[in-house]
């Protein structure tokens, strides 16, 4: 009843091409933004901000990156962890070598560096695809983590191999990295940063380059025949995707955990992000956020559920049960809705348009 676009006419091309063409969507977005900016920091405790909202935003960024590559361009990648490590270590080297550089600039530069690495490891995609490519990207995963772990130049010769984020302020007095950074500042910074980059991604996939990625994904030979150069399309997808993933890695190391070692970016991390993309929905920006929320929240719920139910189970058993439930839920989700949470959202919007009438 409320959600209906009847009577909303578009009178210009700009209006027709807008990302949120329906007025109710725009109102909802503004409300959502207000809640995220004002209500969440006011209501949520520091614990909630640090363990749920901050990792959610960081993972959403990584999922966004992988979704560009796997969801939009159709190139399956298992190297996400390696690229995240790249972003983290590039940021560390840049931030310590040029202390006067603004932290946002450092993040963006590290993202660009990761994009270069991504293009390098994307080269095999010009010859192979599908699972062969997935295994080839594993080479990036293992090689990069090994490199950051092995050569202590990357950690500025720290004996433990752990890098700690130096304190940096976004505007003087408001630290986003280092020990003085408050959770609210971190959260707001991430929120704005991720929102801007998500907007960029949304516009990228609607533009010429995004359409060429989708053409390659849907049928590469046909795409080539209509004049899309696979080399450019694929490598640009690798570059943009690695850019986002690299920044996500940098945010993970600098804003979320504050100190990190190369082993935090093992293959598990790659799978985690891949799960987010698949559960959220391949080829959907919104899906990346939904998937990230799901995968971040699920383990927290699972580990708190037994205590909430009053059951006393050993920690070890809980860990194993978590694995089982996690695996089971993933299979369940794939069977129920292979197109992910984004599709469920789509369906519910369709239903909402007709409500309260049956048709």
């Amino acid at each position, binding site marked *: 009843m409320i959600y209906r676009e009847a009577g909303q006419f578009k009178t210009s091309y700009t209006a027709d091409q807008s990302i949120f063409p329906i007025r109710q969507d725009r109102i909802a977005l503004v409300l959502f933004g207000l809640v995220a900016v004002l209500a969440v920091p006011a209501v949520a405790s520091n614990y909630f901000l640090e363990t749920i909202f901050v990792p959610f935003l960081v993972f959403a960024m990584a999922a966004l990156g992988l979704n560009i590559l796997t969801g939009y361009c159709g190139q399956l990648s298992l190297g996400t962890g390696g690229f995240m490590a790249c972003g983290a270590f590039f940021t560390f080297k840049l931030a310590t070598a040029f202390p006067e550089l603004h932290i946002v600039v450092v993040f963006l530069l590290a993202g660009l560096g990761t994009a270069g690495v991504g293009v390098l490891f994307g080269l095999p995609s010009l010859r192979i695809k599908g699972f062969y490519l997935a295994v080839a990207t594993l080479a990036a995963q293992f090689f990069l983590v090994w490199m950051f772990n092995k050569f202590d130049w990357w950690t500025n010769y720290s004996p433990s191999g752990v890098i700690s984020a130096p304190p940096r302020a976004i505007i003087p007095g408001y630290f986003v990295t280092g020990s003085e950074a408050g959770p609210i500042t971190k959260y707001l910074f991430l929120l704005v940063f991720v929102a801007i980059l998500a907007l960029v991604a949304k516009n990228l996939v609607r533009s010429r380059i995004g359409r060429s990625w989708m053409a390659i994904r849907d049928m590469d030979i046909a795409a080539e025949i209509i004049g899309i150069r696979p080399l450019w399309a694929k490598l640009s997808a690798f570059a943009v995707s690695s850019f986002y993933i690299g920044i996500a890695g940098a945010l993970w190391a600098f804003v979320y955990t504050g100190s990190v070692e190369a082993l935090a970016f093992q293959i598990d991390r790659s799978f985690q992000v891949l799960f987010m993309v698949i559960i959220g929905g391949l080829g959907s920006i919104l899906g990346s956020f939904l998937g990230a929320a799901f995968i971040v929240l699920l383990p927290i719920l699972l580990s708190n559920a037994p205590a909430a139910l009053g059951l006393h189970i050993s920690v070890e058993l809980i860990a194993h049960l978590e694995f089982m439930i996690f695996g089971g839920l*993933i299979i369940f989700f*794939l069977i129920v809705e292979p197109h992910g949470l984004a599709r469920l959202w789509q369906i519910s919007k369709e239903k909402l348009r007709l409500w309260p009438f049956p048709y």
Partner: protein
Amino acid sequence: MNPTALRAGFWILAVPLLIAALGLTLQGFALVIPNMFFDWAFYLEVLTAGLLQGVLYSLVALGFVLIFKASGVFNFAQGSMVLFAALTMVGFIEMGLHWTLAFVVTAAVMVVLAMVVEKVVLRPLVNQPHIILFMATIGIFYFLDGFGQTLWGSDVKVLDIGIPKQGLTILTDVFEYGIQINAFDLVAALVGAALVAVLAVFFQYTRIGRALRAVADDHQAALSVGIPLKTIWAIVWSVAGIVALVAGIMWGSKAGVQFSLALIALKALPVLILGGFTSIPGAIVGGLIIGAGEQVAEVFLGPLVGGAIQDWFAYMLALAFLLFRPQGLFGEKIIERI
């Protein structure tokens, strides 16, 4: 002379030459780079150790190939099947069963597991894109990991079925100190060879084996001549489960049964690239090359760059290989080329 025999003859001749060429190259490097050490007897020793290690990789890769051939599913859970099988076997042995009996019971468990997987996971996902099925097998991977450890605990377990483990010294008349070989690795190689032989006979001569090959060739054609696809899938997953059991026993008695066994699967992936996803001989040869290559690289080249290059060397080898032969050594020619 038929082409197969010709090709086999060519490889039998070429392999020793390749090994010699690799040795000479390394020797050349050792002459140029001062802190690199090279010795022929040591080289051969490392190479044999690597080859025998490669047999174990092949055993894991074999399970992948079987399932990929028959159902087009890239079964990421093969590694956790190995772990689960080994854990179950140890569990039964600890209950007091003789290991042969435990083997039979565990094999039965793997068959049941295969049927459950077919019923619960594969059947509802028929006709979905490959990536969805792949993700589903990652789901199975997590589930089996948790399930196996919930049932049997997560301590490192010893699996001992009486395979000798002492070192053997051979070729003492050629080299001064001879070449050390672990008897256990030899047994593993023999078991691997026996398993491949059994599988080959099974695929070639039995009724079910023929049906499996028909399904691997063309699902639709197989269906239209009356081969029940669902039964075939259950059988293939059972066979892969039993292969996983054998691999689990071998890895388990070599390194102890522990969680890291599940990650062995990752090492089997470059083997698959090298050998081709659909070829059983490919899995064997690929495993041997990866095993030997990675061992030689680790021992001779590793110290130059700080060691532990085993983690990624296999992948880089596979990656370099892909640039020249995207379909793998024995893979189907009709690979999706771009």
